[in-house]
């Protein structure tokens, strides 16, 4: 376990003055680490019950935890975010009276800390979110000099650069009187181009059960990469919906968007559906940063899920009878980049014999022999329906993975698919609607693409005794600029759902 940290003496000095007698000094690193691990529930992983760690009274008020020091003193609020092998934590300054303890919501330093930590996380883990041990070590070793640049005295003001060390600011030409935005590290020179891509992700849970409602939702992101000359060029991107499309909801925009129409923000998923809701066009005027960025994101309520599935399991003497059918909705374009269905089996031995027939596509048994992978290829057949039927015998020597939810005949199918050049909501960016106002009036070439992908697309066998409202959200995808012209290649390796 490696620890890298930085203390800011002047901030500590102010904390001491403000907190007065209730000031709690930050303990030395070793103690700090131990307390943090206990608080995050990571200490003594082999003991089933540790009073300090598992007391039911204690609710970790993430994202800010409280470290209980010797005696009554507590160190609060310690912001901690962990991902994989990395835990990032910071202690924001409490700039209002600390007795009685103020709510987190009244400390601006908390949200600033969260932004700061998120920036550090992206810096260390990179865009993919996964790093090997060495890569991680080298990134962590780069933190101290980075911190001295973006946050020399404990007040984070600059954004943390994505790639390695921050670029030295380049001098603007002397003739320009326009001020350079602080979030723009330099100026672009060359041929102008604007790339816009819309990607929608659909999540669905289907139970095949009258008493339990199926759920599905769609969220979309619009990512841009703009190469436009000028200190503060203006670009406008407009999203449009088809005539009867359901309005975009919960729109969040990048801070580089200069102004917003209030009607764009008013539609939200928590309101009841309202026929009079604003349904576009959605105009986003902005001045682009140099790097690719997520211009906006939205959610949408589409009337049907793109694929309806049913999954039946039946236990017979020594084997399990499996039958699956998947039906592609007629409104969805029947042309996939990929489409795979995964059928994992938990709490069982390995598969011995899988005597299974499919009406279309190819079937594989995973190396670990506890997962059926059904590759459906690029197209559903004309009937838009595919089926899988057969028997599986579990008598392998070793036990497969276990899961507390999928016991007995409870199981699920997970679908991974990607449909290029279509969005479920119908939202698109018209090439002609992209406007660029630049001092030099350059030739504009815009490329657009859109795609629909699935994430956690699940069909449950109707034995589940659970109510499912929503899934925990996925991590934001990262934009890869190379792929803008040919549709976004989404890093979506087939893997089991996050928690299972």
């Amino acid at each position, binding site marked *: 376990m490696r620890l890298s940290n*930085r*203390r800011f*003496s002047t901030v500590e*000095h*102010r904390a001491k*003055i*403000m*907190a007065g007698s209730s000031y709690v000094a930050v303990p030395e*690193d070793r103690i700090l680490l131990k307390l943090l691990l206990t608080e995050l529930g990571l200490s003594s*992983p082999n003991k*089933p*019950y540790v*009073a300090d760690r598992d007391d*039911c009274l204690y*609710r*970790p*008020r*993430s994202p800010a935890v409280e470290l209980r020091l010797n*005696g009554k003193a507590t160190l609060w609020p310690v912001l901690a975010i962990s991902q994989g092998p990395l835990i990032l934590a910071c202690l924001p300054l409490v*700039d209002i009276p600390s007795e009685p*303890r*103020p*709510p987190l*919501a*009244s*400390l601006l330093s*908390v*949200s600033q800390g*969260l*932004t700061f*930590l*998120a920036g550090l996380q992206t810096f260390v883990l990179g865009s993919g979110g996964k790093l090997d041990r060495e890569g991680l070590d080298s990134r962590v070793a780069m933190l101290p000099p980075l911190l*001295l640049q973006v946050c*020399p005295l404990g*007040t984070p*003001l600059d954004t943390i650069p994505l790639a390695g060390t921050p670029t*030295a*600011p380049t*001098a603007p030409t*002397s003739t320009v009187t326009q*001020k350079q935005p*602080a*979030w723009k590290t330099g100026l672009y020179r060359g041929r102008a181009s604007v790339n816009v891509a819309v990607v929608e992700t659909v*999540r669905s849970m289907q139970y095949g059960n009258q008493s339990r409602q199926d759920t599905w939702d769609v969220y979309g992101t619009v990512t841009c990469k703009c190469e436009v000359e000028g200190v503060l060029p203006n670009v406008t991107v407009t999203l449009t919906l088809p005539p009867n499309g359901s309005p975009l909801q*919960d729109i969040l*925009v990048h*801070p580089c968007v200069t102004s*917003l*129409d209030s009607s764009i*923000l*008013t539609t939200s*998923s928590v309101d009841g559906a309202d026929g009079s809701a604003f349904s576009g066009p959605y105009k986003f005027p902005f001045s682009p940063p140099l790097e690719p960025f997520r211009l906006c994101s939205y959610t949408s309520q589409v009337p049907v899920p793109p694929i309806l599935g049913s999954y039946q399991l039946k236990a017979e003497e020594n084997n399990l009878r499996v039958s699956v059918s998947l039906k592609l909705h007629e409104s969805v374009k029947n042309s996939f980049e990929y489409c795979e269905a995964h059928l994992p089996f938990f709490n069982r031995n390995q598969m011995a014999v899988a005597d299974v027939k499919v009406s279309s596509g190819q079937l594989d048994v995973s190396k670990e022999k506890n997962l059926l992978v059904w590759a459906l290829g690029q197209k559903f057949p004309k009937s838009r329906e595919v089926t899988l039927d057969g028997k599986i015998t579990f008598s392998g020597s070793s036990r497969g993975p276990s899961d*507390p939810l999928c*016991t007995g005949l409870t199981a699920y199918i997970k679908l991974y698919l990607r449909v290029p050049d279509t969005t479920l909501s119908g939202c698109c960016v018209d090439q002609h609607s992209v406007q660029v106002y630049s001092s030099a009036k350059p030739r504009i070439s815009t490329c657009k693409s859109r795609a629909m992908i699935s994430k956690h697309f699940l069909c449950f066998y109707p034995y589940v005794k*659970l*109510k499912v*409202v929503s*899934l925990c*959200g996925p991590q934001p995808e990262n934009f890869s600029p190379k792929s803008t012209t040919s549709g976004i290649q989404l890093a979506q390796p087939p893997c089991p759902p996050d*928690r299972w």
Partner: protein
Amino acid sequence: MATNWTERIRAFCCSPSGFLTETSPDTFLSELLRELRDDRVSYGVKVLLLSPLCEYPTLLCSSESAGEETALDLMSVFTQCPSRFSQFRCHLLVALTGVLVCSSCVNGHSRAALDFLDLLLRMARDASDPPGEGTRRLLRATACDCLREMEASCPGLLSQRLELLAGLRQLETSRLHQAFGVLQILALRNAVYQLTKQAGAGAAHLKALLGGNGSVAWEADQEAVHMDATDAAMLSSLILGPMGRVPTLHTGPDCKELRSVLSSLLEESYLLTPLCQAALFHRLTEVVAMVPGIPPAVFRAQLLRLLGTNEVCLLHVTLLMKCGFTDSLFSAEDEAFLLKRLVVLSQHPLLSSPEKLFYMDCILHFPENRPISCGDSDEAPPVLLTPQLASVLLPSVFNDSATLLSRLNLQALVFLEEGDEESRGLAYIYDHLAALLHIVDRGGSRDIVVTFFRAAFLFLFYFHHVERYATCLSEQLCHLYLQHTRLAPHILNLVNQTQERLPECKWFVGLLQGLQRVITRVPFGQLPLHDLSSHLKVLDRVAEEEEICQRSSLCFLSTIVTQTSSSLCTSGDWRLGNGLLGVCRRVLLHPNLDSMLIPLADILQHLAFHYGDTDIRDHARLYYTFLTMLSREKLSAVLVQSAAEGGGQVKKRTLSCVMAESEGLTNTLTVHQTEKPIFQLTEALPGPHQEAENLQLNQEDEYKTLECYRAQFSKSGFASLIVLKYHLTHTEPHDPRFEQLFSIQLHFSLTDDHYEELQDISVPCLFRQGPPPVVQLTLKPRRPYPTTIHASAIFTSKDGLTWHTAMPDIHVAFQQVFLPLPAPPTWSRASTRDVFECLWDEMRHETGESCISLFCCQLGEAALKALVEKHFHSFLVPDPLEEAAEFRALLFLPPKSHMLLKIGSTEDAAHFNMATDDCRLLPQMNSYLLKVTSSLENSVS
């Protein structure tokens, strides 16, 4: 050398206190400064050398004067450093800021701070950037940051420079304008705050302030500016919610100048990074809140942009703005919109989990325009948050545990507000809890188990009064327990916490009864032994409750003892036996004991005759005797006796307690930890050092004297010990539990390797009223340096419990290591004198580790004499000419170092000529002399 420093700096940063015990802060600081000045050291290493100064300036510069000196040194390093090493120069500025702020030089208006400010302002203003060179801009940006930090730590510092700062920001077209902007708004905010504190200040003052371009505040007019370093209020945020009071400045509607400054800042806010924008809006909100002449509507143009943002800090600052201005900026519609927005954000699929949790927290502390309750820190859902709106935040089993618990808490609060016990929402929450329980039942991971019990506690905390669900939960828990007896500690924890936190709620009794029921109904044939120990633990807890009838427990015990005698009694498992006895012991104390006499007696008798473990048999017999021989009162007197004396916590222990594993055994066998130190070692006044007997012997020649003296050291262990005497005394305030202590075992651990490990010391007893026992600490130095020794003790209190306590650290000062010359007792004064002469002569040549040094200070002759009498009396070496103007002292520092002093005075200065055979002692000696002489100077003056 470089690697050496890397290691040392790492060692320092890992544990500064540990590192500094081996060297003094002054020494380390002077080493750092020397290296920084050294041209041969690379700048990469120098950057590293600055990190202790950046991170721990208070440790290294403990006083204002030390801080000032260090700052002056660093500034000279800065001026000498070639400008191409901009990285290092930036680090230097940061280190300087840290040193000056933390050693209170900035607040103390010291010269160094003033010089540094000048330097920073000069650098900030210096826009003559050679084209294509970004390095100077980096330096300017750092200078701005340093200025902002100094203004933040010492508010009002730049209040006279507002026009300059505004000008700098406006002229700057590079990204640097951000640094200037943030600096300007902070200075402006502090300046306005100061004005609000001045009686009669108004628009004219404000105008003068904004146009002011004088010097740094304290230099301009010491009197005009009230700068109180300890005014915490000035450092604090002014936006505190509905109850917060913001000091105001009455300017009337005419404050054009301020308005134009604010609008220019607002206009350019878009050009700042989100973090900076948030900081800027926060300060702007404060300024506008302090000046009622400016309407909050100035922010209106920015609002839509802020409300649509995906940046957590920008939306947060909008919430704070709402907190500050309520309906003067946010209409009721805006409020409803903002709340909906928060709900959306709390579950938005594209936001990270910490962000969503934070938004959920914001919902529970939503700054309402018309708050009903006053703004205490309790969580309360806003009125506008209807169950229908909140329904998108219903917990699900797919949530991570923090999200799940937060959502559960929020829903519970919403439904509680609604007050409808029959609502579908409550049913949903309960179903959800049941779903979690199912997962636990099916073998969920540790994380899920812990989460479930926390969720259960939350549910009970809010809804224990809804009988239907409480009963249902209790039943399901009993069922769960029977399937997974390993959950016993979790369930008992839930029982104890509900009992403690919900004193009026008797739910836990019901649960315990249920547990008793399910345990006692298990057919004994289906009872695995490993479950039995959990069952006994639970039954033990059940028997604690007076309201629960223990008959079925006894039946159960009787069954397992008699019917399974083949396995349980013959196995003679001591732990299980103790479990059994624990339950019996609790039943002995139960108020309904009379009705259970016979079954209990049967069980005890059976145990006493048939159990496979002698210890258990003996104890069972003892209990049996108690039960049959003693009256009720005596029985409870023997077994419990909560002694009335003291805090009620004190329980007398009798030997019989050893038996009950659940309480008595653990209590008596466990070493308890005291919260605070109970006693301490205070230095006993040293008696006079034993004077060498003054025998006149034959004068040997000088050379031989020294040889003879040195020969003694060949004996192992010669003169190698230092004996320090301490009194063991109670600390204040005293705790009645610890009035009388016995069998105290003192344990010492070293913090460095200058001394050999110390032996434990036993003290038979310590009474508060009696004379303090004397403890002799025998130290065996390897190197005669000052040290800190951690001390702890184990002792027994009057009630028989064993305690462990930490004691205050023992600091062994340098002078405590001094010993008189260990000359043979038969030696004459003259021989001592000879040794002194010879040693001095040797050391004067500074060979090897030897060296000489001189310490001077201003002391009159009389004062010097007094000082020598006081501190060096026992080390004086007699002079052949009795009344010479010079004192000679010979300090022996075990195991084999010497420090020779020739102390004399000329006119008004005292000279301490020193010679030693271990030059590493000089810094210590120096600080010791500094201490003793300065204390004398003070007392004289």
